[in-house]
């Protein structure tokens, strides 16, 4: 008898439960559905920086697949110091530039080439995103990229560059970055610059640590800072570390970067190991980068 009663009670409860479920309103069901969905989906963090360069060096951003990014960068002469002042129109009389073309092969791999005024240097690089910051099913706190760059100096000076080997420098960088909030992104850039036959008195391998970040000021503007510190053990004598501060302004297809820095070079091997300008002596110069993107390839992720 007791058993029967138990079964009846149990079936009554089942009926109540199933009935209760059926009357649950659908927006509640939708919420439950989404909660389950959130855990099964990986959401990648995007737009940690406005463009693929922080100021002089690379940011953790890549050019999207099939997109060509034309970069025109200028550095003027020093505002103060011996070569600045009113006579030199605060450096605007002297301009150096880099013209660069970056292209996204896939969403994790981009390539780029460039030519700079400074030492008439050609450069080429690959940027490979090894890890992507994400939340959800796959939770990854940082984005990690590997960037090998080659710099070839073509400046004619037979006394300094005795062989072709003197002119080639290799830079290997790891970019480890995180978008902490919608506005704040930070990254560190452990770097080694390998020079086959250095023309200065420095070592073959120069180790440096870069640090940089951005804080958004509005939806379309941000304040950026970047610093490359040559580790004391391998610092090139007579050179200074590069500190750059600037603003990013994004207007649709363009990103304008305006900054002050103590380096006129824009190739990693040149500005990390060969910079002479000093903030303390007024060797601060104004510069800008203009980035314009063009969709040239077919987008790989077209899904309809």
């Amino acid at each position, binding site marked *: 008898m007791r058993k*029967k009663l138990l*079964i*009846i009670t149990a*079936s009554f409860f*089942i*009926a109540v439960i*199933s*009935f209760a*479920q*059926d009357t649950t*309103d*659908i*927006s509640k*069901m*939708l919420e439950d*559905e*989404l909660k389950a*969905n959130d855990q099964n989906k990986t*959401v990648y963090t*995007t*737009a940690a920086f406005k463009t693929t360069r922080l100021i002089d060096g690379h940011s953790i951003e890549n050019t*999207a*697949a*099939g*997109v060509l990014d034309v970069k025109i960068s200028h550095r003027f002469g020093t505002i103060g110091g011996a070569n600045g002042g009113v006579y030199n129109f605060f450096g605007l009389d002297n301009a150096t530039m880099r013209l660069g073309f970056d292209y996204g092969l896939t969403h994790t791999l981009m390539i780029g080439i460039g030519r700079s005024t400074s030492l008439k240097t050609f450069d080429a690089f690959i940027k490979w995103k090894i890890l992507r910051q994400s939340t959800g099913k796959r939770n990854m706190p940082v984005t990690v990229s590997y960037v090998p760059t080659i710099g070839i100096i073509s400046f004619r000076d037979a006394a300094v560059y005795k062989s072709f080997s003197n002119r080639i420098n290799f830079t290997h960088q790891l970019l480890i970055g995180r978008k902490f909030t*919608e506005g704040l992104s930070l990254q560190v850039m452990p770097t080694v610059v390998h020079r086959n036959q250095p023309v200065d008195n420095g070592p073959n391998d120069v180790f440096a640590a870069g640090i940089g970040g951005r804080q958004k000021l509005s*939806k*379309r503007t941000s304040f950026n800072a970047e610093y490359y510190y040559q580790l004391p053990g391998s610092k090139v004598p007579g050179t200074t570390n590069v500190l750059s501060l600037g603003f990013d302004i994004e*207007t*649709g*297809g363009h990103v304008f970067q305006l900054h002050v820095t103590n380096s006129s070079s824009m190739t990693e091997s040149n500005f990390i190991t060969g910079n002479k300008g000093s903030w303390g002596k007024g060797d601060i110069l104004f510069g800008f980068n203009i980035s314009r*993107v063009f*969709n040239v390839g077919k*987008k790989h*992720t*077209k*899904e*309809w």
Partner: protein
Amino acid sequence: MKKQIVTLFIISLFALSTSAQTYITRNGRVTFFSKAPIENIEANNNEVTSFLDTQKGEVAFVALIKSFKFQKALMEEHFNENYMESNTFPKANFKGTITDLSKINFSKDGTYTVTVKGDLTIHGITKNIEAPATINISGGKINANSKFNIKVKDYNIKIPTTVVNNVSETISITVDCKYDPLKKG
């Protein structure tokens, strides 16, 4: 004992028959289109989740903003970062009712034109909207389509003056959902 089994059977039948009132899709499609002098912008989201309660005529949708796919990567980035602020407002949703539910006979194949009324939440702003919808019933499956326009300023989305010729003030939204009966796990 037999009696109890019969009772249980009846109860389970009851549970089954009521669950068939709810229909679901996890890959509904929402498209939006902006027509402006310089460029037309189209985005697709094929991962929209929606429930439809055929007895009460209630319908609910949720779309993840980040799941909208654009032809140009930069458009997608600006859409998320500058316009929709998808980190702060990751989802858009709609909850409403079919106002003329009696027009539809869900057990008979056919196409019915109805009106859906309810609350649309985009960019953290909720507005009451009304849209025409077409319900097609065929072989126990329900296919729902709708097309309506919204004004971006109603949802506190600002278009900078520099891009007024690139982005339209009025966005046309198309919904296409194929529902299946909800199976209880």
